[in-house]
């Protein structure tokens, strides 16, 4: 049975923890709003990009299409780009992305394929380095970045494309967490290379375009750009998802701390009462004995 003093110390420390988690929740809520705005601001670009790409892809016969679109025709070696957050304390956010990537990598390796991994974000690296120490080709650290800019994404994209050009892999898959809502983030795998143009050519795109320089050249520029855009989008969704996850994790942490304080206060009061009763009994029985 802890003494009164111990209980008092416990209560004080849980209260301090509660204050911290509460503050973190509020910070996450503010950051979430900003992240959501950024994700929304980026949406028009990626939507238009998808439409333009689908249009241009229709015009180019499969044989002329750049290798980034057709792939190498094999699928022996895979590159996994795993995007996670830089910080923890956000529930199962990072581990669920890492788990998806790990399962994927295990399955590929069981099929006898080569797997290489690029991790974006410290947490993904921490989670995967134990199992795949030899597979991790590179880690990208975005710790110093306050607001993710397009240049961050295009750096990663040009790295990936360079590796593809050097023949290091045949298929590239991007792992990130899709931001559904504040309480729901779905870890997602999306194939980057070979790029699928998606059959989403808009109806207004029936018009016959003229191309300057020509369609194949445009595709050559368009597809690397599209990869960068997809990575950029993934990073933004990740930030929004991380903040959402952190918010709900910190919310339940605050609630748990509140419950704990209640319980501790109850047993503190009970013990105090017991002690008073004990002292009273001592005084009364002492007086009776006289």
């Amino acid at each position: 049975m802890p003494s009164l003093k111990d209980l008092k110390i416990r209560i004080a420390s849980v209260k301090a923890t509660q204050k911290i988690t509460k503050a973190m929740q509020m910070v996450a809520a503010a950051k979430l709003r900003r992240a959501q705005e950024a994700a929304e601001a980026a949406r028009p670009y990626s939507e238009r990009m998808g439409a333009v790409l689908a249009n241009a892809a229709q015009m180019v016969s499969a044989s002329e299409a750049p290798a980034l679109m057709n792939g190498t025709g094999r699928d022996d070696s895979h590159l996994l780009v795993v995007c996670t957050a830089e910080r923890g304390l956000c529930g199962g956010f990072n581990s669920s992305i890492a788990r998806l990537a790990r399962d994927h990598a295990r399955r590929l390796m069981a099929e006898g394929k080569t797997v290489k991994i690029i991790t974006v974000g410290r947490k993904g690296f921490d989670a995967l380095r134990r199992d795949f120490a030899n597979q991790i080709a590179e880690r990208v650290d975005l710790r110093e970045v306050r607001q993710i800019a397009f240049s961050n994404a295009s750096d990663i994209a040009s790295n990936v494309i360079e590796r593809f050009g050097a023949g290091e892999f045949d298929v590239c898959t991007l792992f990130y967490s899709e931001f559904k809502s504040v309480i729901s983030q779905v870890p997602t795998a999306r194939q980057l290379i070979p790029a699928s143009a998606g059959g989403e050519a808009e109806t207004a795109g029936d018009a016959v375009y003229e191309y300057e320089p020509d369609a194949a050249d445009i595709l050559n520029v368009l597809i690397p750009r599209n990869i960068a855009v997809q990575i950029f989008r993934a990073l933004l969704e990740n930030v929004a998802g991380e903040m959402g996850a952190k918010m709900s994790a910190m919310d339940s942490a605050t609630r748990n701390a509140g419950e704990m304080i209640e319980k501790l206060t109850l047993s503190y009061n009970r013990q105090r009462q017991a002690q008073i009763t004990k002292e009273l009994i001592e005084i009364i029985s002492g007086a009776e004995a006289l």
Partner: protein
Amino acid sequence: MADSFKFELVSPERLLVSEDVESVVVPGSDGEMTVMAYHAPVMSTLKPGIVTTTKTGGQTERYVVYGGFADILPDGCTLLAESATTVSEVDPNDVTQRIQNAREDVTDAKDAETKADAEAMLSHLELLEKAISMSR
């Protein structure tokens, strides 16, 4: 008076402009072109340069873009710019930095083709710098 059409300038970070304009001068990689309403559908890559829009009232607006795509349809024109700002907000250091990078690319170029590309990029950027300093 010419008819107006919908013009949009989008950068990866945000939608910069979405408004009705009468004409747009687009720095296409094969040369500048002026787009007006009912233009034939064209898709073109952009070189670094200045986009000038003219609104129905005649007032013009100028933006700096660093490469990207133009998607031109009879009823609208969408520019997907790699990075875009209005001319008045351009950071001169940013331009200088890009020119610096382009110079390095020229010296680092391994084969003739990439060298030619890098040199073209450099000359576009230098022209752009002049145009910006002149418009100030």
